[in-house]
């Protein structure tokens, strides 16, 4: 499906969901900023400094919309333990405006994370060796998982040229399903892994960046670089809780077509889950254990 079609479909669904009233509201919201941009009205150009609050800044776990709860403290205690949207109350049979808007904002962030790219400046700043899989664009990436795990022979040659052959470890980064996760966590996790590995006398060479990356692409990287361990840091499929969650898939001498059970994964690396720096320190130790025991996944008894 074309991106445009998808967009218009979602729009029409949302229209139906919120009804005609907010259709008018949306229109007026849409037209107003357009007016403010007109240079013919100088009084609006003056910035009053006012702006709408960012509703995604609100900590949902601390927000209880039930107007008169029997046990507020108990309710909030329950909410502390789950990111689920409990106690959102209602307006008639529907969500309250805040709940509805927040849901759409979180959903939009999740979609953006999937459909946006890791910026080239960021790849440069992090000193990554950029390559891409056989996918030509995001649509192909979403619809053809098989292409997201393959590289052209030219790319493989390029990869070989820019990495150390038979290194102890080859680290790679993939956009996966969340580019936002990569930009949010990489700056902290990479130096933490490198520092941890240095403690064991293991050097981190050049790090690859793979655009349109599916997890099994690490198997081809493993075969190309002949590294002992390949560690892939990849953006997780975003949800409504966070769009910035990253996973590390780590395997000892991965090969194309190997069973999935040979991968070890550390998931939930984000500001509300395992902190990136702490995950990096843990991953470094894990890589060392894999090198020592020559195993990963379920073969590696921890």
């Amino acid at each position: 499906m074309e991106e445009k079609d998808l967009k218009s479909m979602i729009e029409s669904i949302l229209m139906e969901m919120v009804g005609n009233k907010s259709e008018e509201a949306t229109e007026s919201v849409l037209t107003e900023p357009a007016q403010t941009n007109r240079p013919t009205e100088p009084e609006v150009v003056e910035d009053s400094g006012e702006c709408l609050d960012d509703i995604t800044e609100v900590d949902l776990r601390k927000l209880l919309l039930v107007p008169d709860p029997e046990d507020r403290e108990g309710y909030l205690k329950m909410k502390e333990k789950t990111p689920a949207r409990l106690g959102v109350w209602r307006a008639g049979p529907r969500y309250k405006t805040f709940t509805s808007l927040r849901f759409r904002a979180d959903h939009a962030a999740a979609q953006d994370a999937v459909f946006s790219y890791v910026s080239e400046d960021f790849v440069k700043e992090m000193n990554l060796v950029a390559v891409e899989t056989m996918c030509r664009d995001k649509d192909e990436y979403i619809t053809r998982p098989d292409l997201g795990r393959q590289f052209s022979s030219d790319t493989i040659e390029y990869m070989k040229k820019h990495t150390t052959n038979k290194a102890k470890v080859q680290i790679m980064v993939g956009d996966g399903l969340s580019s936002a996760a990569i930009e949010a966590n990489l700056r902290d996790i990479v130096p933490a892994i490198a520092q941890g590995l240095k403690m064991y006398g293991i050097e981190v060479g050049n790090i690859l960046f793979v655009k349109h990356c599916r997890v099994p692409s690490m198997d081809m990287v493993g075969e190309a670089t002949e590294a002992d361990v390949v560690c892939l840091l990849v953006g997780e499929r975003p949800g409504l809780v966070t769009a910035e969650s990253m996973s590390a898939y780590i395997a000892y001498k991965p090969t194309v077509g190997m069973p999935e059970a040979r991968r070890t994964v550390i998931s939930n690396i984000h500001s509300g889950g395992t902190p990136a720096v702490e995950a990096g320190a843990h991953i470094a130790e894990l890589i060392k254990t894999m090198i020592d025991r020559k195993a990963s996944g379920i073969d590696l008894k921890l």
Partner: protein
Amino acid sequence: MNEELLSVGIDMGTSTTQLVLSKLHIQNMASSFSVPRLVITDKEVVYRSDICFTPVLEDNRIDVGEIQTFVQEQYRKAGIRKEEIQTGAVIITGETARKDNANEVLLSLSGFAGDFVVATAGPDLESIIAAKGAGAHTYSKEHSTSIVNIDIGGGTSNLALFSSGELLDTGCLDIGGRLIRVDQVTREITYIAPKIKQLIARRDIPLTLGQKVTPTDLEPILQEMVALLEESVGLRPPGDFYDIIVTNKGLKLDRAIPCISFSGGVADYIYQDSVDDVFQFGDIGILLGRAIASSSMTQLMTVATAVETIRATVVGAGSHTTEISGSTITYTEKSFPIKNIPILKLSMADESGSAEVLASAISDKLNWFKLNNDLQKVAIALEGKKNPSFQEVQKYANGLHKGMAELLEKEYPLIVIVRHDMAKVLGQTLYARLDYKKDVVCIDSVHVDNGDYIDIGKPIAGGKVLPVVIKTLVFN
């Protein structure tokens, strides 16, 4: 994965000494797809010793030889060897903590009882341990309420206030069952504790040493003692004697407390009453229990049944003192256990500044830990950050490295305790700063404060976590 730790608790109280053995079950609660998270999932008492009178020598010193024999005897009865004990605590409580050789006995006994059996003392800790042993913290959590537990022993009443499983406050009063002793046969008063004597004088109650008494004669003084306990939990405004009867401090009482539980030897006679001879123990314990049972404490407050009464403190020492560190930590040190390390907890102001601010705060405050100009081993504790950047971790490491220079000169290991989940990366960073030449122990997810001590045991669960005991060592 499921691992068990065998833990011993020993309580040397004013009147009795006891021992329990507990099993602590440890499990990894995280899914296989995330970093490990090991927690203590269950605690069960597997052996309860006999209760013996705390042996005191003629010169009013504790008879350590006798206690060691008692411990050996109990280990034999339980069918275990000392080497099997993996953790535990000895607590010295009440008046026994005030004996001349209390410190020495405590330290020698903790070593005698097991390799990682730690020494603990102090009225606040005593209150907390007793309340946990009585199950007050679990009750407050399960019922989502506040509860005060009063552990009434021979010499003191220890109060601990919990709200939804969290400790709020502790207090201690010099009220106990053996503060007036009555000869079982002649019914003559054989002893009155100094503060009680003072109370008797102030209230003009006709009671003197050597006097023959009936329960009715003792009623007025028992009512005074009950009134003081009512004051201590906020049922009455504090009277003129309240400040005198308080051992070190009372509860703050800035909010009403809905529930109460009782532990200690006296508690048995609050929860039930079925004795023929009220002086069968040669003291006023049973009468005090009865007086409390018919007081406003049981009428105006919801009384929760304690899971342990006379054994609350010892069960608390055996089952509730050992914690485990966070599961992503760094240690390069190999010589565990590390025992009795005082804590230096930094303030938020120390932490929020630059690495230099942190460093100078540490080196300044290390002076508090100098004994005759000789620096002791110290563990540095900080809050840390919830989701720190790598730069912030470097800042912490630089500050700690510089600030702890004096400890490094002494060849002491660097022991760092951080509250937020960042110990593994912080420890690795520190270790890198030290050129991988000095030892580092960096753990997280443990709450500590100034005045606390920490003991760290041998790694468990395949080396992932360290058992720790946070405690106080206060002898009155």
